[in-house]
């Protein structure tokens, strides 16, 4: 018992404070998103989403207590078993799940609906930490790279069957963690290059201009540093591949199903289909953009509560914040997220075991991806993919999943001294 008290005091209250603030702000924004002045209900009213969110928050607190009082070794020991269980659930989901909006992503247990894909994230993070814990695990070797990618790829494969493109994409976030753990640079350079080229290819009508840019960059590369034949040949080959890639992009975009095509094109030109695919982004930007510097005031917004923005209490919850609290409100919330993420990097770096650190970076990867992609989507920087804003968006599954994800790490962190002797 005294031991337990000791570790409770080691808990990182800064992280918990940031978490609580975000959950609280999320909750009051959910209320604003569904508030109806003509039929005003209390924020605690269980018939509206803010009341239900409070139930989810309450149960999340129970989960937090369970996690904090559990034996810290439990998570490490159970990691692979949890992973297998969730893989099985993910396989079952498309078969027996409840169909909503053309997706079978939900399990129905009595009155409750659970989304296994949300929970599989922390299980995957745990499994990756377990896998990569060994000192011998060396990400510079292809063999180990493939093992890590296998662990990440397996849930992705089954989530795509649901099909839930957004949730599947989230797993790519683990590459942030892999980067920290020594994944070679070339993958990242390659990925970023391909992304930049894709954007250029779509944005600039004339591919010759893109080819010109590639040429200039490669020539600069050639003249920087030593010059020799091998370098010339390598750069030449790279150039040829990049040019082929640029030309293939247009072809691939043309071959995509129209609604995927439009989701991409709408980023560059929201007006191509303002009542269809463009509707979400257009309305979302209108809601946020109309907030101005200081916002219209709490519960004074018109765009989200009058349903101009779809999914306004879940994936597009940021619109309510932007509209009613303006840029200052956005600044505060984005500041809180950045503070939380930087705090988690700090915590992860102070871990004494590879398991805790890798898991910590897994948490950072998932939260960061959700945070950045969700807000990017609402302001039209990224295609509309249905992923929630952590701690903010309405929904039991997502709140519970993010809470479990985060608090397992807080639990591990609180035991960092105890674990000290075990490994280094």
């Amino acid at each position, binding site marked *: 018992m005294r031991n337990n008290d000791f570790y409770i005091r080691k808990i990182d209250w800064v992280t918990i404070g940031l978490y609580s603030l975000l959950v609280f702000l999320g909750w009051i924004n959910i209320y604003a998103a569904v508030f109806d002045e003509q039929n005003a209900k209390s924020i605690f009213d269980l018939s509206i989403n803010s009341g239900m969110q409070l139930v989810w928050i309450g149960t999340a607190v129970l989960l937090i207590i369970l996690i904090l009082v559990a034996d810290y070794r439990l998570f490490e020991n159970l990691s692979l078993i949890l992973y297998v269980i969730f893989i099985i659930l993910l396989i079952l989901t498309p078969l027996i799940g409840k169909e909503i909006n053309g997706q079978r992503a939900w399990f129905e247990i009595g009155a409750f609906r659970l989304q296994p894909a949300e929970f599989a994230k922390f299980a995957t993070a745990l499994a990756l930490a377990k896998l990569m814990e060994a000192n011998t695990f060396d990400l510079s070797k292809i063999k180990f790279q493939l093992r890590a990618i296998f662990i990440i790829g397996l849930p992705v494969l089954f989530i795509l069957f649901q099909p839930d493109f957004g949730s599947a994409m989230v797993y790519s976030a683990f590459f942030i963690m892999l980067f920290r753990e020594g994944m070679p640079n070339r993958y990242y350079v390659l990925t970023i290059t391909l992304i930049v080229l894709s954007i250029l290819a779509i944005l600039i009508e004339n591919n010759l201009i893109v080819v010109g840019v590639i040429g200039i960059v490669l020539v600069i590369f050639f003249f920087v540093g030593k010059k020799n034949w091998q370098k010339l040949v390598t750069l030449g080959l790279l150039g040829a591949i990049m040019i082929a890639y640029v030309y293939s992009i247009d072809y691939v975009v043309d071959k995509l199903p129209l609604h995927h095509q439009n989701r991409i094109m709408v980023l560059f030109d929201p007006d191509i289909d303002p009542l269809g695919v463009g509707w979400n982004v257009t309305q979302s930007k209108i809601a*946020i*953009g*109309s907030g101005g510097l200081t916002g219209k005031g709490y519960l004074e917004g*018109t765009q989200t509560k009058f*349903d101009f923005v779809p999914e306004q209490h879940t994936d597009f919850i940021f619109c309510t914040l*932007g509209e009613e609290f303006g840029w200052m409100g956005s600044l505060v919330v984005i500041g809180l997220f950045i503070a939380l993420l*930087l705090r988690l*990097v700090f915590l992860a770096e102070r871990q004494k075991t590879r398991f805790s650190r890798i898991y910590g970076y897994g948490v950072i990867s998932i939260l960061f991806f959700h945070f950045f992609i969700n807000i990017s989507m609402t302001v039209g*920087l990224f295609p509309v993919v249905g992923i929630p804003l952590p701690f903010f968006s309405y929904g039991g599954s997502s709140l519970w999943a993010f809470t479990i994800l985060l608090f397992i790490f807080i639990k591990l962190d609180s035991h960092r001294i105890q674990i000290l002797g075990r490994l280094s």
Partner: protein
Amino acid sequence: MESNRPLIIRFVIILLGAVLLVKLFLIQVTDDSYLRKAEQNAIQRIVDHPYRGLVYDRNGNLLVYNNPVFDLMVIPREFSVKDTARFCEFFNIKKELLIENFNAAKNYSWVKPSPLIKQISNEDFARIQDYLIDYRGIFVMTRSVRSYPQPSAANALGYIGEISGNQLNRDESKYYTQGDYVGLSGVEAYYEPELRGRKGVNYRMVNVRGIDKGKFKNGDLDTVSIAGENIQSTLDLELQQYGEKLLAGKRGSVVAIEPKTGEILSFISAPTYDPNQLTGSKFGQNFMLLNQDENKPLFNRPIMAMYPPGSIFKIVQSLVGLQEGILTPNTTLSCNRALVNCHNHPNPVNLFGAIRNSCNPYYHQAFRMMINREVSSNTFRDTQIGLDKWRESVMKFGLGDKLGVDMHGEKGGSIPSSALYDRIYGNGRWKYSTIYSLSIGQGEMLVTPLQMANLAAIFANKGHYFIPHMIKAIDGDPNLIPEKFRTKKHTGVDPAYFDLVQDAMVEALSGTAARAIMKDIAIAGKTGTAQNPSGEDHSVFIAFAPKEDPQIAIAVYVENAGWGGRAAASTASLMIEKYLNGQISRPALEEYVLAGNFIY
């Protein structure tokens, strides 16, 4: 393993967070177009159109009122019909038109109401009223259109119509919006600011399905509409109707003015039209028909048609000559037909005789005396100086420039200046022999029927006039009419000189217009003939009566009716009798005028 990668990760987190904040700053703070779009989305501006002011005649008879019409509005997002054919039958609309209107509504807005069927008749409205609730997304909006209980005074009253793009651009008050109705001619246009009232605006919030969500900002921005002011016009409906009857089947104008006040008693432009034709849904079609009519019923002749004044102008010449001291009542000149043609009358004549007999050579010589006063030894220069001095005196009679009547589109006529002749012939290349036809009201000289009626009023008033006007009271208050209509304008001619003129005008009737003479009322009048190079001359007559205490001054133009003593003088005489006695004692004369048909 210790590397810079945690640092890179921290950097990327901060960098991408900053990217979001910059993007948010761009759309939230630097770009206000989103705020406008948000208002377009959720704020519905509902305009409360005020009741347009009514127009009465001088005796309180209603001339213009508002008739409610009903527009069927549609909210495309909510609208759905199972059985289109039945709907069309029920609402009495063609399927193609329904689809066309619905698509137009959809293009305008998915969630805001737009008209589906415009101006449903009263009968249709009564029929469909109870069944409206069976359909979602449609409702009836009430508007009002102008209506005229008497189909009279069309050109005087004018009409209203949808504001044009040009007018919208020119509107500095920014009061109007697309689709607003505005007075386009006549009293409707001139007194638009008084008649229209003030629009009220209600701001309502609506959700994405167009469902009302209450007042925006608790109604702080809402304004109440204010009804337009009622206007009393100077027209005498009975006289107006009688004049229109007399001019039926003819082209021409009649303007009657009360000399004491400048109030226009009747304002007839013939041929005319039923003002009810230019209201409501029939406006477009009827306007096109009227506009294409070769007799030009939309042409507001009393203020827009211009003719040479002819012999009537000799009275002005006499008065200017007397005032200038060039002529005296005793100035006697010979009827020298070598100068200009004349007709048989005693010779020579003094001024009285010249007016009475309308002697052309007399005015040829008198005008020369007024023009060439040997101010300059150069004849050409002398003529220039003389003409401009004379013109100045003549323009004081309200000629050669717009009078300023309260109707848009008034023409000013023309009294030529030396500059005009300099332009035509060259400076110093013209002299009296070039311009002598001005002496008898011909040549480069034009007046409108309104200016002629005003001349009659000047003769009646012995030298002054009030700008002729159509407005008697605004909102029941005669003091609200524009100041300029209550200000006396002087011709600068001594009232004493008018006695001779008035006497001559009474006398003249027995010579040139015997039909116009009435037993019990002394009418002073003067015939004229406006020469028409393209057909029969126009018949012109001005008069005022009774001579001792003038109640009415009148000008009558009947186009292509020949010499002024016939059609025009008879019409004027009947109008005077109608106004002063309220009834007609000379059915034969009336019959004669009614039978005249000069449109060919």
